[in-house]
């Protein structure tokens, strides 16, 4: 079970982390925690990329993860800016109280 290249285990770990992130993103009400859950999901995906790249002796996984991190950073900056604004305007960061999109 404990091979030189633990990519299968990495995939399992990644699946577990992804599930935790997805369920947390839906169930938690605090948007900042939701945001963290999304980051966790992104990390889970990163892990798959790295593991697969490592197993395939490829470098593309690292490159891809690098770009995902870039996007995550931008997302964090803009997303958190939006949260700050929402909090200023609505005095809450509770996802249940934000429904301006209601049709």
């Amino acid at each position, binding site marked *: 079970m404990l091979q030189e290249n633990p990519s299968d285990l990495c995939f399992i770990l990644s699946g577990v982390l992804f599930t935790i992130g*997805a369920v947390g*993103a*839906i*169930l938690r009400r605090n*948007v900042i925690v*939701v945001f963290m859950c999304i980051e966790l999901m992104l990390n889970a995906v990163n892990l798959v990329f790295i593991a697969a790249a490592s197993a395939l002796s490829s470098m593309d996984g690292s490159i891809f993860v690098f770009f995902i991190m870039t996007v995550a950073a931008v997302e964090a900056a803009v997303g958190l800016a939006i949260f700050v604004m929402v909090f200023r305007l609505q005095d809450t960061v509770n*996802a*249940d109280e*934000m*429904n*301006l*999109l*209601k*049709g």
Partner: protein
Amino acid sequence: MADYIWLIPFFPAAGFIINSAIGSRASKTSVAWVACLALFLAFLSSAAVFYEFLQLPATARVFEKDIYTWIASGELNVNIGFRLDALSVIMCLVVTGVGFLIHVYSVGYMHGDPGFKRFFIYLNLFVFMMLLLVTGNSLPLMFVGWEGVGLCSYLLIGYWYEKDSAADAGKKAFIVNRVGDFGFLIGVFFLFISLGAQGVWTLNIAEIGQNAHLLNGAVVTVITLLLFVGAVGKSAQIPLYVWLPDAMEGPTPVSSLIHAATMVTAGVYMIARLNFLYSMAPDTLYVIAVIGVLTAFFAASIGFAQYDIKKVLAYSTISQLGFMFVAMGVGAYAAGIFHLMTHAFFKGLLFLGAGSVMHAMSGELDLRKMGGLRKKTPITYWTFFIACLAIAGIPGFSGFFSKDEILWKAFSSSHGDVWIWLLGAATAGMTAFYMFRLFFGTFHGECRASEEVKHHIHESPRVMTIPLMILAFLSLVGGYVGIPHLLGGENAIEKFLAPVFGPEAPMKTALNFDIVRSAWASSGAAGHDGSLELALMVASVLIALLGITLAYIFYIKNPSLPQRFIERYAGLFRWVHNKYFVDEFYDFIFVRGLLKLGGILLKVADGWIIEGAVNGTAAVVKRAGDRLRKMETGYVQEYAFAIIVGAIIVVGYLVVRPIF
């Protein structure tokens, strides 16, 4: 020159572009110079081509040059290319030559008009489009020119757009022409697909000519009839002639250039261009001849009872166009083109003369308020006189040769008929009568204008009279290029055009000579064909002289006679004076009818069907939206939940599928 034939339409186009670009800043003089110079250069290029043609053997007189691939789509390939042969070079010479003279004339005529620059921009555009029409080597390009001249005609008829009548006349011309153009376009489509069905996909006129034999007779008849509908509209024949008299609302040089000399002859040109198709369809030819001669006759009869000098000339134009169509219809294409040319000279001159008269009379158009202009406007008088003699068909003048050629062909050609000749000869007499009625009424007798107008009467400036004199000269000698063999000539124009029109339609084998023979037996003229031709010639000249004499009796000798005549036949006069109420009839049937049909369609097709469909769709969507919007709670996490469920389904499918 062969590689540079595109220069001919290029010059007016350049004039148009230059004047459009700088027109607002340039002075009137420079605009006029640019416009006239463009025409003059185009005329020089045409003349150069003509001169080169004369050096070449008859069969080599074709210049064709493609300059640009316009449409290339599957089987459909159309090039922008020009083709000059004997026919189009004559048309080019007429268009640019007469056009140039009219441009020069307009410089004087339009001098005080605030839209001077706009006028010359339109005129140059018109000449460009007309040259495109006559030099284009494919039907689509010809159609571009065809529509382009229609557009310019519309713009120039409605040139004084602030006048309701001018704006309406422009619209009328445009809409009536649309009816004809529709037929023309359908004809082109039909021609294209019928040739395509034979494996030849082409719209190039020369290639159509080479492959025309692949088509069968009935198809050609339909195609030619449809194309003829276009010619009927453009060249103002029954039943689509109604726009031309109204088109006289435009400035007189426009009437002269567009509605007498060039554009209205486009239909004649088109038939002559496609003569290989028309020669294959004797039924169409007969229709053309009948419509032509009926138009000639009816338009001439309306000309009797008009007081507006431009209206008289308009009906005269329709009538003369009818003559050209008779020529086309009896297969005498060369005679038709010959008449087209001489008509451009003398009718252009008549209109310019009428413009000069208007200039002298402070814009007066009513024949009843004129008279006695002979002394005050001698140049206009003499040039007008020559034009009247030419149109009346007095021997020695250009109109005589061309008209007589047509009448003789109408009689003798295998497509012709005696009654066509009879009606044509009668029309010739009527033409002589109403033209001299106009002439005497304008220039002879007492001046019936008001004192103020009388005081102003003066001869036009030289920039106007010199074109008049040149055109008068052409009206005088223009016919000598087509002196028939009978009179010792060699009919040069027919010989020149022969490569385009192929062998002439055969003469009737057993002419309906018997009637004529018996009629002319007493005068000893019956015998071989030559003397018959001579006899017919003499007859038509006599008829023309009779018309002139009658006009002289009515309007000079005995000026009270017309009034008595009118009172005697008041009903008839009113009928003819009101143009047989054709406009009212069209108004009742087509305009009102279409309006009513439009009203019904508005209510049924638009109101119920289309709006019903549109509003129904909207209502369905709205109702669906009302239901579906309940799903949009606005909570981000519910959307995320939906995404996750979707992901579960998709991933589930992907994971489970290979297992089973």
